[in-house]
C-alpha cells in the first residue's frame, strides 16, 4: 500500500488501525457481480418469440476502439471497525492501429484514486480531501439516502459499490467522448444503457460477458442456452427505470460442447434501430471477428475480446 495514502489518512484520523493484510484488492466488486442471479422477461422485437438465428456472412473486423475500465479497492485502515477504503478506478479506450492497440488519440486515460469512508460515523463531516486525495463519503446509501448500518461488512459493501460506480462513471465519460467524436464502432465492455448519449449512438456496441440477469424465460431460456457457435438469439428490447432503452440479443462466440452453458455466450446491446435483424447480424459479425486472438490466460477468455483484455492489461500497468 502506498505510504502517501497512509499519511493522508493519518493526517485526518491519527488513531486509525492500519490493515496490513496481504489479501488482494477486490477488483470485481461491481454491481453486476453483486446482483443475485435472476431471470427477467424481455420483449422480443424480432418475430413473435425468441429463437436461434444463424449469423450469415464472414466475421468482420470493424471495431476501431475498445473501452474498458478497472477498479481496485481495499481496506487501508479502520477505526473501531469502520473501514476506510483506498479505491482506484481507471478507464481507457484503446484503438487498433495496424492490428496493434494504442491509447485512443493519445488521450490520458482516466485514473483516479480516492478514499472512501463514512464521514458521519468518523465524525469528519464536510471533509472533502486529505493529503491530496479526494474523499468520498459513504455514510449514506446512494439509492435510499439512508444512513448505512454500522456493521463493518455493510460499510465495506457500500464503499466498494461506490468504487464500482466511479468506475462506471469513468467508462461512461470516455464512451460519451467517443460517441461525440466519431462514428467508428466502439466495443464497450458491458452494457450501454447507463448513458443516454451512448445508448443512442449507433457507433457504441456494448458486449456483456456476465449473465447474472438472463433476459429470457421459459422456452426462450432454452433457446439461449442451446445456441450453437455463430448463432444469435432473436433481438429483444430492454428498457428500465433510470436506464436508456437499447436493443439486445445473445450471441454464442464459441462451441459450448464440453463446457458449461454460458461458455462463449455474450449479450450485445446497441441503440434501437428499425431493421433490428440486419443490425443484429451486422454487429454479430463484428463481434465474431474478435474471437481471435484468444484472451487467455484470462479466465473469461471464452467471452472476452482481446481488445478488452488489452485495455485491462494496460490499466493494470498504469493504475
Amino acid at each position, binding site marked *: 500500500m502506498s505510504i502517501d495514502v497512509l499519511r493522508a489518512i493519518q493526517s485526518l484520523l491519527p488513531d486509525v488501525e492500519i490493515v496490513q493484510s496481504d489479501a488482494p484488492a477486490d477488483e470485481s466488486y461491481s454491481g453486476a457481480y453483486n446482483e443475485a442471479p435472476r431471470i427477467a422477461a424481455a420483449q422480443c422485437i424480432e418475430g413473435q418469440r425468441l429463437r436461434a438465428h444463424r449469423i450469415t456472412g464472414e466475421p468482420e473486423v470493424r471495431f476501431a476502439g475498445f473501452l474498458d475500465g478497472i477498479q481496485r479497492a481495499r481496506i487501508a485502515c479502520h477505526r473501531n471497525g469502520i473501514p476506510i477504503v483506498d479505491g482506484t478506478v481507471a478507464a481507457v479506450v484503446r484503438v487498433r492501429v495496424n*492490428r*496493434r492497440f494504442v491509447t485512443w488519440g493519445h488521450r490520458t486515460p482516466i485514473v483516479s484514486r480516492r478514499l472512501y469512508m463514512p464521514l458521519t460515523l468518523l465524525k469528519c463531516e464536510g471533509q472533502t480531501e486529505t493529503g491530496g486525495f479526494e474523499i468520498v463519503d459513504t455514510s449514506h446509501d446512494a439509492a435510499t439516502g439512508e444512513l448505512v448500518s454500522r456493521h463493518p461488512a455493510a460499510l465495506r459493501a457500500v464503499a466498494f459499490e461506490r468504487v464500482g460506480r466511479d468506475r462506471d462513471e469513468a467508462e461512461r465519460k470516455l464512451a460519451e467522448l467517443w460517441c461525440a467524436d466519431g462514428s467508428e464502432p466502439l466495443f464497450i465492455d458491458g452494457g450501454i444503457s447507463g448513458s443516454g448519449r451512448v445508448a443512442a449512438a449507433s457507433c457504441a456496441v456494448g458486449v456483456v460477458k456476465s449473465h447474472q440477469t438472463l433476459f429470457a424465460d421459459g422456452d426462450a431460456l432454452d433457446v439461449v442456452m442451446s445456441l450453437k457457435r455463430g448463432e444469435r438469439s432473436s433481438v429483444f428490447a430492454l428498457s428500465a427505470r433510470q436506464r436508456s432503452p437499447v436493443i439486445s440479443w445473445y450471441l454464442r462466440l464459441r462451441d459450448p460442447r464440453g463446457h458449461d452453458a454460458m461458455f462463449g455466450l455474450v449479450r450485445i446491446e446497441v441503440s434501437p434501430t428499425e431493421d433490428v435483424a440486419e443490425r443484429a447480424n451486422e454487429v454479430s459479425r463484428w463481434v465474431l471477428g474478435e474471437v481471435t*486472438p484468444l484472451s487467455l490466460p484470462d479466465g473469461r477468455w471464452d467471452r472476452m475480446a*482481446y481488445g478488452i483484455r488489452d485495455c485491462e492489461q494496460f490499466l493494470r500497468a498504469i493504475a
Partner: protein
Amino acid sequence: MSEILGRVVATERKPNTPHEFHFWTALDSPVGIGTIVRVDGRRPVEGQIPHIYGIVTEGFSYTDLLTPMHDVLGHDGAPGSAGFASAERSEIRLYSAAVLRQIPEEPLQPVPMGDVFLAQEEDVNIALRMDGYLRDGGHTGIPIGVYRAGGTDATIFLDADFLVGPEAAHLNITGVSGLATKTSAVEWILASLFTHFPESRGSIAAVCFNVKGPDLCFLDLPGKLDDGDRALYDKMGVPARPFQNVQYYAPYSARGFSLNTLRSNETLAHNVTPLTWGLREVLQYAEVLLNRDDIDAKADALIDFITRSVIDQTFTDPMLARPHVVQSFADLEDWFRDVLRGLENGNKESWRTHHVATIRKVRNRLSNISVRCAGLVTDSGPVSDLPFGEFEDRATYVVDVANLEEDAQDLIFARIVSKLREHLERRDLGVKHVVVFVDELNKYAPGDGPDTYVRKMLLDIAERGRYLGLVLFSAQQFRSQVHRRVVGNSGTSVFGRMDADELSAPGYAVLSPATRTKLATLEKGQLMIRHPHFTQPIFVRFPRPAVMAGRLGAEQYPQGGEVSLEAAVYRALRARDSSITLQAVEDAIGLHDEGDVLRALAVTLKERPADVLGTFRARLPKRITQSVQQRPQVAALRGAPNDDPYGA
C-alpha cells in the same frame, strides 16, 4: 536531444545492477545486439543527474501468451488463419545492456530507472572513454572502424598508446578463414595506423610475415573499392590507396637463382629483394633448427665454441693440417673434416674437451642446415638481409615465407624478430616502433605442443615487446588454441566471424549468448573489438583494404616460372640498371659456373654500384682461356685376318 528510445525497467527477478540494466523499446526501434544507448536518470545523485552508457548484450521478445497452446487453440490449429486475426498480441522487445560507463563514476550505483536514448556520436566517445584520448593537443586515436546504429555513425578509435605501447600493446585477430577477416582487417588497421599514428610518438614501420598463399604479396597495388568503402575511408580520414612504401623479401628457390615467392612476376620485381643468409647469421640461431634431442649441453658448448672462436677469424690448432678462416658452410665443413681427420690420425677421442661423437653430431646437424634451408642459407655466398638500421617511417617490409619449409620459416622468423629486438634496444633500427604481423598463431604459438624457439620468441614479444616498441599483430583461426600468454598480452583483440565450435570454448563464456550468436553470423566487413578503454566489446564496420587482394594479384601477375641462370641474373641486375641487356649478361656469364655467378650477383646487389654490369663482371672469377687439347695420334692396331670368325 534525440527521441526517447526506451525505458529502463527492473523487477525483483530481473533487477538492474551497477553493471547491467534492462529496458524495453518500441517494436520498430533500431536497437540490436551491440547498440550503444544512453540512460538519463530522473533523480540527481549528489546534485548531478546520472547518465549511464550501455551496450546491448541480449534481447528478448515475447507476447502475453501463457503457453503456445493458446495460440494453437486461437487459430483452430491452422497456422494460415493467424493472419486473419483481428489484432496482434501485445508484444515486447526487452533488452539487457552492459554498462560501459556511468557519469558520475562515483558513487557506483545500480542503474536507475530512466529514459533510454540512442547514443549519438558524442555519447559514443564518452561511453567508450575515447574522450580521454581524442582531446585537442593529445589526440592519439587510431580509427578502427565505424559504429553504426539507427542514425548514428560514429568512428571508433583505438588509443595508439594502448595499441603500440607503451601503456599496453599488441593486437590479436581471430576469425574463420575465407571471410575476409584476418588479412583484410590487418591491412586496414595498418593503413589506419600509418595515417594516424601521432608524430609525437615517433616513427613506425611494419614487418609482415606472409605465411600462406599470396595474401600480402600485393600491398602496393590498388584494390577494388565500392562507394561504401570510400565513404568509410573518408569518414575515418584514411586515404583509400595502397601502401606507399613496401619492400618484399623472399629467399631463393632451392636451385638458388629465382625467388621463392608468388610475387615473382617480372613487372613487380622492382621492390623484391632476395633474403639470403650465411653461416654467421644462421649459427646465431642454430637453436631454432636443432631439436631438443640435438641440443644437449655438450652440443651447445661446441656450437658456442665454433661461434666464438672459429667463425670469421683465423683458427689454428696443432692438430689441424692448416689454419682455417671459416666464413661459409663450405669453410665450416672443411674445418670439421680437418678436426676429425686430426682426431683419427692421433687416435684421440676428444679435442679441446669436445668428444668426437659430439663433434660428428654437430657437424651432421650444421652441415644439414644449408640443405634443409636451401635458397635461404647460402653455402658460401654473401648475405642479403632486411635493412636493419635503415628502416623507414611508415614503410612495410613483407617477408614471404609462404613457400618455405617449416625449418626455414622458423629460422627467418626467429632471426628477424631477434634482430628487430636488438636494434630497437639499441635505438638504431631507423624507426621507433615496429609492428610485426604474424598469421597462423595456431601453428606458431599453440597452447599445447612442444616449447619451440618461435613460440618463445612470440611470448617474449607479447610480454616485453611494448617497452621496446616491438608490437605484435597476430592472427589465427582458433584463439582458444593459442598460448594464453600471447593472446592474453594483446591489449586489443579483434574478432571476425567465428566458428560456433570455437565460440563454445570457455574463453568466450564472458560474452552473452546473443553476442556469441552475432559473432557466429557476422557479415564481411564487421568486427568485434576489445580494447583496454572499452569495458565491453564493440561491433564496428571497416572498409575493404585498398590493396589488391592476394588471389586477384596472383591472377593478374602470375608467378614467374623457373628461369635460366642468365635470365635470373638479367632480371636482378636490370632492377638496378635498366640499360642492361640479356645479351650483355649472357656474355658476362659465359662459361662461369653457377656458384660463381650467384656469388658475383649477390655481391653486386649488396654493393649497389653505379656501374652494375661492370661490377658484376669484375666479381666473377678470372678464367683461364680454354685450349682444346689434341688427342695424340696412336698407331692403329694391326687388323684382324679376314677369315677370323671373331673379327669385327
